[in-house]
């Protein structure tokens, strides 16, 4: 799924990545997906910078509702409240849900 983001960026689209609802769990540090035969998500995240994806947004309420803080996340992100997240979503020309 993160591959779709990298592909968009590779085609010179200005990509923003938004994490909300259960999506915030994707960013939790210390994941061991190999233990259940899944591919590491973190591998894709490390490549975001190389693809010039500088806008990574995380919804503050989604974190708080799930008992997480930004310190639980594996990469540096920009925190937004729900209203600001709605604004970011509304500004996009095209939205992909992953």
């Amino acid at each position, binding site marked *: 799924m993160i591959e779709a983001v990298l592909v968009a960026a590779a085609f010179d689209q200005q990509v923003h990545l938004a994490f909300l*609802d259960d999506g915030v769990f994707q960013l939790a540090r210390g994941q061991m997906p190999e233990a259940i035969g899944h591919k590491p998500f973190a591998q894709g995240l490390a490549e975001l910078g190389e693809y010039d994806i500088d806008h990574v947004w995380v919804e503050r309420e989604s974190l708080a509702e799930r008992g997480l803080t930004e310190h639980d996340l594996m990469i540096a992100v920009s925190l937004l409240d*729900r209203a600001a997240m709605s604004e970011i979503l509304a500004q996009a020309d095209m939205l992909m*849900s992953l």
Partner: protein
Amino acid sequence: MLHIVSKSPFADSALESCLAHWRDGDALILIEDAVVAALAEGRFAPRLAGLSLHVLRPDLEARGLSVKALVDGAALVDYEGFVDLCADQPASLSWL
């Protein structure tokens, strides 16, 4: 923005999340299992009243629910109407 919700609100938080991110001028279409949210006597009806609300008719009919009263103002649309909604709004967002 056209919000597209496809999961039953009784089993999934997609509709809740959609409503939490609602902005003036937005529109909502309920498709697949999400059509159950539009029943007038259902728990979610008060939350949907007053919104620009559309329900995909084939998905409602497939579930035997087209005989039930829907939320005031809900518009039934077919697949062509769904496409028109997508074209009318600047962007579409599928809540998964």
